[in-house]
């Protein structure tokens, strides 16, 4: 085996040395090691970049650069009138990757789909707990075990999902990473060999790139899947050079040791933009940072008080101080890159004088309150403490005394499960599947009151009716209208101070062509080319 590998390596080196033209290698300076290679088991974007977005496909996919759905391994689908039955026609002739460790004998079919979901849903399936201590967290947190009644093979190229209740975001869920389709044939072989763990170490899918090797914490190697149903990629080899330090990633990019990097430090962006060999793409992230007033508590149960506090805060100042401008002020609870975003909603103006007056009108005098600031840096809020201090100062100008409190991260989230937590809480959210339901229902729905997802304790009948209606409506246009209305109600009710949507910055070599920023925050390399 070793000899074979050495030979292959020598061959590889020989082709590389004989001329760069024969093999195009794209190096991506990734920010961390994947937790494993089975995307069903994990929840982090770092892992998804390295697995589901390279090696695997799903029944439906997000359109490149958008949160809309397009056909993937399923060519078409029908939804029953009651919204409970989804029937998928599968793509014919899709091949699983042939690798050193496995050669498939048959094409992709319905068995693979049934297997990929059943292992997550059925706790008696031998693959349900094949990695000790690992659970299908994402599938659980999206409510799949309760939502899906059955997944059945109708014929080789037809699969039927039956749901317990109509659920329009389901299509978006199927495009998510944990819904990746694995090979049942490969799984059966591993099971027979009693090496099931391999599934998480030597992955095999139908995606644009196939796995070659992984050196923990150092390098992941892929090569273009020659049999890819969407056509072979323009680059021959894809390499993830794992580089956790952002400043070092910048240096590597400048030295052309890699051609793309994610998550630069805000302070480095100017310098990167000035480099003649580099280009910097920017896009509003699929996230939001907010300050949630506990609407179940006096005086925050009064809309006027919440509105007044919103008007007291200068968001621009926060964006400059915390993000050095690399963010945009948030108006709605969902980011502008998402479908269903209501452009017509106006933000509460920054007007301390008016705010002061409104507070007086509401009969609030000498208010003292708590502002919760997260102890960690998140993409949507790099420095919560700093932002909280600015808000504190703004509040002081309208006569509100605020005390900043913070707890260790786990403790912070835990305390928010208590409905009676005191004051206003800074938190945020990064979208899972690009569906507005994933923001509006998850963060502001009545079901989530009393969890850390809804620290505002917001449960408004008008809002709730709209989002529930949207959840079961399968016509996306109608759904978008319902969500637009919901955003109007949200702004009137003002359960949050919407702070910002941070800007996602992707610096890369000018030679990189065809890279599209993904609003969901993933990094996809299908369709990318390197200029000579």
């Amino acid at each position: 085996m070793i000899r074979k590998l050495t030979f292959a390596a020598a061959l590889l080196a020989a082709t590389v040395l004989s001329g760069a033209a024969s093999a195009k290698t794209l190096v991506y300076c990734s920010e961390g090691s994947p937790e494993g290679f089975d995307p069903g088991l994990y929840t982090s974007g770092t892992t998804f970049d390295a697995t589901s977005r390279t090696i695997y496909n799903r029944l439906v996919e997000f359109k490149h650069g958008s949160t809309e759905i397009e056909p993937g391994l399923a060519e078409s689908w029908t939804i029953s009138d009651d919204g409970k039955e989804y029937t998928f026609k599968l793509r014919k002739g899709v091949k699983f990757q042939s690798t050193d460790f496995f050669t498939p004998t048959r094409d992709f079919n319905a068995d693979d789909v049934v297997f990929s979901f059943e292992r997550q849903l059925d706790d008696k399936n031998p693959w349900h707990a094949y990695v000790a201590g690992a659970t299908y967290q994402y599938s659980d947190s999206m409510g799949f075990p309760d939502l899906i009644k059955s997944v059945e093979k109708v014929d080789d190229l037809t699969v039927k999902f039956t749901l317990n209740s109509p659920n329009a975001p389901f299509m978006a869920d199927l495009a998510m990473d944990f819904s990746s389709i694995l090979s049942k044939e490969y799984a059966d072989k591993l099971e027979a060999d009693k090496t099931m763990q391999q599934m998480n170490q030597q992955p095999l899918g139908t995606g644009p790139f196939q796995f070659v090797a992984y050196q923990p914490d150092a390098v992941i190697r892929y090569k273009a899947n020659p049999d890819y149903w969407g056509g072979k990629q323009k680059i021959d080899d894809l390499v993830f050079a794992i580089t956790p330090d952002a400043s070092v990633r910048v240096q590597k990019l400048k030295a052309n040791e890699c051609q793309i990097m994610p998550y630069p430090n805000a302070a480095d962006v100017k310098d990167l933009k000035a480099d003649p060999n580099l280009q910097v793409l920017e896009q509003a992230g699929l996230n939001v940072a907010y300050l949630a007033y506990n609407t179940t508590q006096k005086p925050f149960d009064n809309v006027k008080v919440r509105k007044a506090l919103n008007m007291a805060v200068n968001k621009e100042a926060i964006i400059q101080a915390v993000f050095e401008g690399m963010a945009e002020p948030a108006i709605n609870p969902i980011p502008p890159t998402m479908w269903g975003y209501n452009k017509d909603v106006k933000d509460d103006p920054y007007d301390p004088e008016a705010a002061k007056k409104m507070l007086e009108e509401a009969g609030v005098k000498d208010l003292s309150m708590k502002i919760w600031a997260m102890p960690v840096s998140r993409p949507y809020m790099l420095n919560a403490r700093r932002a909280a201090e600015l808000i504190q100062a703004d509040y002081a100008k309208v006569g509100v005394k605020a005390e900043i409190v913070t707890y260790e991260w786990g403790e912070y989230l835990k305390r928010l499960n208590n409905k009676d937590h005191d004051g206003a809480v800074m938190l945020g959210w990064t979208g899972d599947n690009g569906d507005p339901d994933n923001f509006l229902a998850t963060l502001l729905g009545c079901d989530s009151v009393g969890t850390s997802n809804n620290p505002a304790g917001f449960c408004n009948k008008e809002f709730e009716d709209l989002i529930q209606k949207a959840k079961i409506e399968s016509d996306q246009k109608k759904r978008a209208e319902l969500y637009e209305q919901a955003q109007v109600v949200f702004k009137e009710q003002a359960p949050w101070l919407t702070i910002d949507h941070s800007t996602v910055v992707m610096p890369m070599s000018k030679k990189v062509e065809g890279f599209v920023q993904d609003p969901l925050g993933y990094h996809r390399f299908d369709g990318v080319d390197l200029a000579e």
Partner: protein
Amino acid sequence: MLQFFLRRIAVLIPTFLGVSLIAFSFIRLLPGDPVLILAGQHAMTPEQHAAAMHALGFDRSLPVQYLDYLGNMLQGDFGQSVVTKRSVLQEFFARFPATLELSICAMIIAVCLGIPAGVFAAVKRGSFFDHTVMGTALIGYSMPIFWWGLLLIILFSGILQWTPVSGRIDLLYYFPSVTGFMLIDSLLSGQKGAFGSAVSHLILPAIVLGTIPLAVIARQTRSAMLEVLSEDYVRTARAKGLPPFRVIGVHALRNALIPVITTIGLQVGVLMAGAILTETIFSWPGVGKWMVDSVFKRDYTVIQGGLLLIAAIIMFVNLIVDLLYGLINPRIRH
């Protein structure tokens, strides 16, 4: 000698238990709930939470958890990473060669430069050379590793482009790992240029990691030399008319080295601590970087197991140094 050896070993056992207790309790005394960290911002029901706590064994009483942990550890089972679900021991040894390779090279740099610098500074005491060496050593000793590393990267990799920025070898080279030591593996691979690439990747991190030990060794050598140089036997040797090289190199240095060896032994701890930062900056896939990642991910079992394994290695090296010391200086045995 055997008695000396046994005595040393006997001291190690309570030390090791102490370390294990500290490693165990530090993690648990920290606020924060590992399950919530794992779940991120996805809210969990109390049932899901309890089930996850149970699955990870965090719902048992602390003494039970500790005894269980100790028992498993004695059987070589350091548990399983909460994040990757792989054995901690396996993960450790997969990364240890990288750290060892880096540490050895750092130590070679530190010793080969530190001892001669210290000796010359002592011999030329009060000279310009002496002041320069000792001043530089002080700066090197006080330099924050993180800043120092970035500075070198920006200068040598960014501006001058003499060395690569990070990693262990150029990504063009790809061969299976045989020993885990990149310098050896690259030679074994037979690929042209692989060894050179590995060396060029190693230089900067080895310098960064070696800086503090280098400074300490230089200073220690100088003061030990000064002490020895004023001894009567050195004066006698000089009076006999021995050439200065022989007096300094053989008579003085040999005795001055005794405290220096102890210092070198103690630097192993410094190297391990330094490896955490150095490996993070240079994306060096070793034990230090692994520990940092685990802290961020709150991978309790890895932090605990890794801490203990590192402590065990430091203790082991110190034991060797103690024994060596006993060999060099028989007086210490009693």
